[in-house]
Structure formats: structure tokens, C-alpha cells
């Protein structure tokens, strides 16, 4: 177990170094959600006048979306980096060492988790500076960070699965619009009970991303809402578990060492 932890640390360290040394890959994922936050919190401010809208601050309502969007971008980084390892043969180099598959998978998402943590801290700091009040207090703010990092881990692991399945950076990039579509058909812009278009409300209700957003939103707007948190953490942990299983299966196929 100690050896596994050591190997995870080595692979994660490499992943973090590599991510940090490619500013072109992490600056846009950090800044784009911020720009969207500024545009939407001003442009859609009128939505707060709708009867039943849970807050007078659209920024407070919208901020959870930024955490999700950042995590989604982080998944692209983890996936693209692993696809490059497959393509260049670096994965074969690692396969010739005593590294365990579990260490490879868990360590490989180190960059995505590191970036996800940094993004979450930046978004939270900006929200607080902009006057957003966290209803659940300091503990709630901490839980927001934890959930944001878990979401980044989940999407990061999904990125690894796609990279191992397709073996190419293009393959990873091509799935990005699909994942972004999941964000768009969620409750990102309106609470589900205020969505009047029937099919959209149904899709948003079926979409696990809605519950991840609503868990963070509940901590910002409501306080400690056990049901929202259980659903948010539940779907996030399910995403991590399923993605990890799929990625581990694909790794065994890709790294078919005897």
C-alpha cells in the first residue's frame, strides 16, 4: 500500500509539473469561466425578478456553474496529456517499470486535480470579493472546495477513459462539445422549477450535472441542505467510480503487458 502511494505521488508530481509548464493549457480554462461569470451575472440579472427565484444576486446563483465549467476544462487537460503519452510511447515506457495500473490512473489525474483545486480557490475568492455571501459559512465554503475538486477528479477520470479508448488527443477534444452540452442542459441558468419548457426541464432533471451545481448552489444560497448535498456528492462519487472502472478496464487493454 505504501509502495502504491509512493508511485501515485511520483506520477502525480509529473502530471502537475507538466500542467504547470503549459500555461496555454491552463490559463484559458481558468479565465473563460470567469468571463462567462461576468457576462451572465450582468446579462441575466433580470432573471432574479422572476417570482420564486431564490436570490437577488445572479452572481451568487451562477457561481456554481463556474466550478463545474472549470472542472470540465480540467478533464480535457488530463485526457489530452494521457493521449499524448499513448501516442508518443511514454505509456509503454512507464509500462516497462514496476508501476501499478492504479498508480498510473490515480497519479495521472494529479494535474487535473491540481488545476481544479486552484480554479476553485480563485472562483471562490472572486465570489467573496464580489460580495457573495456563503449561507453555509466557512464550513460550507470548505465543502464547496471539496466538491469542486471531486467534480474535477470525476471529469478528469472520464477524460482518462476517453484518452485510453481513443488513444488520441483529437479523440479527447472531440468529446468536449458533448460534455459541454451536458452543462448547457442543466439547471445552470435557472432553477429547475422555473424552467417553463417541458422537455428542457425533463432533461435538466435527468442530468446529473444539475445536482452537482445544485449542491454547491445550496451551500451558497440556502445553507446546509442535506438532500441537495447527498445528491450532489452522490452523483459526483458515482461519476468518479464509474469513470475509474471504465478507465481501469481500458488501461488493461491499452497496457496489455504480460
Amino acid at each position, binding site marked *: 500500500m505504501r509502495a502504491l502511494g509512493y508511485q501515485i505521488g511520483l506520477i502525480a508530481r509529473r502530471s502537475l509539473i507538466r500542467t504547470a509548464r503549459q500555461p496555454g493549457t491552463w490559463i484559458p480554462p481558468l479565465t473563460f469561466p470567469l468571463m462567462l461569470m461576468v457576462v451572465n451575472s450582468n446579462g441575466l440579472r433580470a432573471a432574479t425578478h422572476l417570482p420564486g427565484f431564490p436570490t437577488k444576486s445572479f452572481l451568487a446563483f451562477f457561481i456554481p456553474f463556474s466550478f463545474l465549467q472549470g472542472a470540465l476544462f480540467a478533464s480535457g487537460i488530463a485526457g489530452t496529456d494521457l493521449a499524448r503519452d499513448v501516442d*508518443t510511447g511514454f505509456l509503454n515506457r512507464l509500462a516497462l517499470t514496476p508501476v501499478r495500473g492504479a498508480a498510473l490512473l490515480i497519479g495521472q489525474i494529479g494535474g487535473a486535480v491540481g488545476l481544479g483545486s486552484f480554479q476553485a480557490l480563485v472562483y471562490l475568492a472572486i465570489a467573496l470579493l464580489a460580495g457573495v455571501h456563503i449561507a453555509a459559512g466557512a464550513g460550507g465554503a470548505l465543502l464547496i472546495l471539496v466538491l469542486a475538486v471531486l467534480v474535477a477528479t470525476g471529469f478528469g477520470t472520464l477524460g482518462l477513459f476517453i484518452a485510453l479508448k481513443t488513444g488520441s488527443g483529437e479523440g479527447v477534444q472531440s468529446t468536449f462539445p458533448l460534455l459541454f452540452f451536458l452543462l448547457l442542459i442543466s439547471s445552470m441558468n435557472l432553477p429547475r422549477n422555473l424552467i417553463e419548457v417541458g422537455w428542457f426541464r425533463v432533461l435538466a432533471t435527468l442530468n446529473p450535472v444539475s445536482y452537482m451545481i445544485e449542491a454547491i448552489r445550496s451551500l451558497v444560497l440556502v445553507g446546509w441542505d442535506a438532500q441537495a448535498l447527498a445528491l450532489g456528492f452522490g452523483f459526483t462519487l458515482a461519476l468518479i467510480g464509474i469513470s475509474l472502472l471504465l478507465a481501469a478496464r481500458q488501461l488493461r487493454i491499452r497496457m496489455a503487458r504480460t
Partner: protein
Amino acid sequence: MGRADKQSRDAGIEVEGLVRRFKEVEAVAGIDISIPPGEIYGFLGPNGAGKSTTVHMLTTLLPPSAGRATVAGFDIVRQGPQVRATIGAALQEAALDPFLTGREHLRLGASLHGIRGERRKSLIARLLDRVGLTLAGDRKVRTYSGGMKRRLDLALALIHDPSILFLDEPTTGLDPQSRSALWEEVGRLARDEGVTVFLTTQYLEEADVLADRVGIIDHGRIVAEGTPAQLKAEIGKATVEVVPEQPGELEQLRALMRRFGEETAARPGAYAVQLNGKGDLPGVIRALDTEDVRAAEINLHQPTLDDVFLAKTGRSLEGAGE
């Protein structure tokens, strides 16, 4: 020295009927190889002949479809981890991370092999020095030249002191200077440290200069095997080609040279014979002088591994994979 370590040093590579199929395609079609410890074995063949597939199977990265093989005494299917612990490999295209430095690569490699602390530090310094990358060790790999990447690749393959080294086309794309530096290092490893080297190449000169024995593979089958000298001797004697100064003297030249051997292919305006043992190059020159045939050019062509490949497959190795 532990039992496993001693076993790995005392054993080379044994391959029996190794096969690898990819759906309908038989990339490796049942090969047998026996390489004693400390030998440099050159695996020569055109692109797509099955060289890299063989290396992937022997390094445990690809399970064989049939047949068996042991590397350093360990079965490649049943004892994969033991095989990997005793081999080093530099596979086709230097597999490096452009965003890490040379030293960081070595640090990662050493750590994954369980080498830590001061031992790791001194090992990295020694390997960087050995491959001439001490000054460039802290530069990111994306700033390295092709030759530097290949040398780092070799250092990574040596990080855990392997007894068997697999080099898959290690000098492809390198300039002559880098190529000869790499040959020197590989030769030194086999000569001074007793490392068994399995080297795939499509360069005839590389196999000729470096390998103790050569196996020639084509369409997944070994078509010839032996020392470079043995293989060339199988082909026969040297060829002498003469270009007469006066093109009108070509018929006279032909009659003269037929005394020395069998006619063989020559450039336009030239005549060539494969020497039959009844004469040699000085004999040809004396005959030209006696019969007053002035030569513009005289070439002595010793048999090459390409001639061996041509004789065994009916094609020249140059462009055979196209």
C-alpha cells in the same frame, strides 16, 4: 548477487516458434532465435517486416499469439514482471515528455524502479555523464536535438542496470556523428559490462559494424541468420566492375574479364564480373595492362548484407518495406 539476478546474467534470449497475429495479418510468423548472454544481435529488416512486433513481445508489452520465449531465463508470458526487472528498452521514437528535463526523466525512472536517495542522485549524475548530457540535464527535453533525445532514451533504458537491452531502431533519423557515438556506447556496454543487446535496424552498416550475429527478417520470417562475415561469405566472392576509357573497347573488355569470373549486373557503359577464385583484382589490372585496355574507373565491390537480403528475398533492402 541474488538468484534471480544471477539467472538474468547467465541467460540470454531463447525464442521458439513465436507468432503474433493482428486479425488477418501475421506480423510475426513463427520465428526461432537463440542469443547467448553478452552478444549483440542485429535484427535486420525493412519497415513492416515484424521487427518492432518481435521487440514488443520480448519486452512483454504485447502477448504472443503462439510460441514461447524466455528473456534472461524468464518466460515472457508467465513471468512478465521478472522479465521487465531485468531488461532495459529504448523503443522506436524516443518516448520522452517534452515538458520534463532530462534529469527529471531519470529521477522518475529511477524512483519507479525503487532507487532512492543518494544512490539515485549519484546514478543520475553518472548516467548523464555517460551519455554526454550533464550540461543539458536541467533543460526541458523539447529543446533537445534528435541525438540528445536518443542518448537520454538510452540512459533511461540503463537506469536499473539491466542485463539485456532492447534497442528498436535506435539511430533512425540521427546524423552520422550521433550514430557513431551511440554505436560506441552500445559496443562498450556489451564488451565491458556483458550486456546482451537485441538491436533492430534497417541500416545495413549498423548491423555490419555493431552486431556479433545478424538475423534477417522479412514478412515475419527469419530468412537468414549468422555472423555478418558468414552471411556475406554465403553470397560468394567480390565483384570487380570496370569502366573502359573508350566506350568502343567494351567488347574487348568483356572478353578479357570473362576469364576472371561470371558476368554480373553493371552500370551502363561498364562491365562487371563476380570473381570465381581463378583471379583477383591485381590479376584484372595486369590483364588490362597487357591487352592495353585503358580503364576510366575500376571498382571492387565486396558482398554486403544488402546482397544477402537480395539473395534471400529477391529484393534489395533499400525500399523493400515500401
